[in-house]
């Protein structure tokens, strides 16, 4: 029953399956650590990570570093999205905008962001602006291309219908292309915010005085693997929260596209 292609499964079964895989991973982890198969220096036991979490929550440092990282991601991601969404919609709608931007964007899109980190440090220094720049550079061009694609795939007859109902060509993006692509745009933002977190850690590993990437690097030098685990787990949890946030947002602003 559960293995018929595309057939929905009961909610209870879905939840149990998800929980079972988690239990397997954590069980394996416990087996390796409490079973003494891997030295604690390389792989801390779950209990140890939880205790470290308690300690760092109590002294406020975990919250401080998490907030520092979240701030960088938020600022970089918002700046990138605010420009990429409208520009991408125009790029997908007007061939002239596409012809102008496509060659440059497709060139930059394939440059590894990491290779620009030294350049940004040289130009901007090691302040928050540097990390924000890395995130913008990493997400903006990807967002632009994907959003232009979404705008391009708006059915032509939807736009034609709008014309025959009195929509002017100059307001087509606002009245038709934007609402028609909105569900796709929200999905693109949901995916790219995950990439923003990846670039954040890259930026923080190289040059930062706070943030989850920074405490990971410091912990590596002191062989505090439990703190590295904790930092990774925090990023995972924040990713999960943003992901659910975007899902909720999509249901709220685009209830028609279930």
């Amino acid at each position, binding site marked *: 029953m559960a293995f018929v292609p595309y057939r929905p499964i009961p909610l209870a079964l879905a939840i149990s399956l998800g929980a079972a895989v988690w239990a397997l991973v954590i069980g394996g982890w416990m087996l390796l650590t409490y079973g003494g198969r891997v030295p604690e220096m390389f792989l801390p036991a779950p209990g140890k990570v939880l205790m470290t979490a308690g300690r760092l929550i109590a002294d406020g440092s975990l919250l401080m570093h998490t907030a520092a990282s979240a701030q960088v991601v938020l600022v970089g991601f918002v700046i990138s999205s605010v420009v990429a969404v409208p520009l991408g919609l125009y790029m997908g709608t007007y061939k002239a905008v596409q012809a102008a931007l496509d060659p440059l964007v497709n060139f930059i899109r394939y440059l590894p962001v990491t290779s620009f980190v030294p350049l940004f440090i040289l130009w901007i220094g090691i302040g928050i602006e540097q990390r924000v720049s890395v995130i913008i550079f990493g997400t903006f061009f990807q967002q632009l291309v994907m959003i232009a694609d979404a705008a391009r795939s708006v059915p032509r*007859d939807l736009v*034609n219908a709008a*014309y*025959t109902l*009195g929509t002017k060509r100059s307001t087509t993006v606002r009245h*038709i292309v934007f609402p028609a692509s909105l569900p796709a745009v929200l999905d693109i933002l949901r995916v790219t915010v995950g990439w923003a977190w990846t670039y954040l850690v890259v930026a923080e590993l190289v040059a930062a005085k706070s943030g989850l990437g920074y405490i990971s690097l410091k912990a590596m030098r002191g062989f505090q693997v439990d703190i590295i685990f904790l930092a990774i787990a925090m990023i995972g949890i924040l990713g999960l929260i943003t992901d659910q946030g975007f899902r909720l947002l999509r249901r709220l602003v685009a*209830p*028609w*596209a279930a």
Partner: protein
Amino acid sequence: MTQSADITVSNVTLRYGSGPKTVLALDGLSLEVKPNEFAVIVGPSGCGKSSLLYLIAGLEDRTGGSITVGGAPVDGPGPDRGMVFQSYTLFPWLTVAQNVAYGPRRRGLAEDERNRLVTHYLGEVGLAGFADHYPAQLSGGMKQRVAIARALANDPAVLLMDEPFGALDSQTRHSMQRLLLRVWDHSQKTVLFVTHDIEEAILLADRVFVMSGRPGQIRKVLTVDFPRPRLGDIVLDPAFIAMKREIMGLLRTDEDDDH
């Protein structure tokens, strides 16, 4: 209400592409549709009948000739020419009521006037109870009924219909044809309706324009004078069958030309 207008197409040519790959879709086509008339174009697939409708709507640019609607030359799309498409073109982000109110909203009508139009036209197409549904929640036939209401609520001078029932099952198609005739009877708009279904053409039309294969031209114009309302068993009437046979013959000549 806007006066319903005539449609005059004279010597219209449509050519796609350039150089040796050029395709002549329409070759000096002329036709006239009178005010309030229900005109139907039938033709083999690929004859350019849909293209002709897009040209009249101003959604495509003709290569040559002239088109006027109500005496005004066609230059680009405008709300005076409402259109119902073969594909479903309701705006998925708007409710049924908001879809119907879209044109009046663009024209800047006040909200209570828009609401009056929505109530009236949703009633006309029998969907009064679905005002707050989204298009995704409707069946194909219901979507096309809303599309008709949306086009009419904008009070166009002519209504262009591009095989609007082509994707529907035959049961739904028959009830849609009856509904369209009733709505047309109330609104008295000029309708230009494109189909490849001969029976549908005779059932609906005051006059049927039979097109030839590519390059498209009008092969023959037939006046259909069966009394309205044309009820279900009219399709069994010998005169109906004779006309059906005549149109089939005209279309078949064309297939023979191809081979």
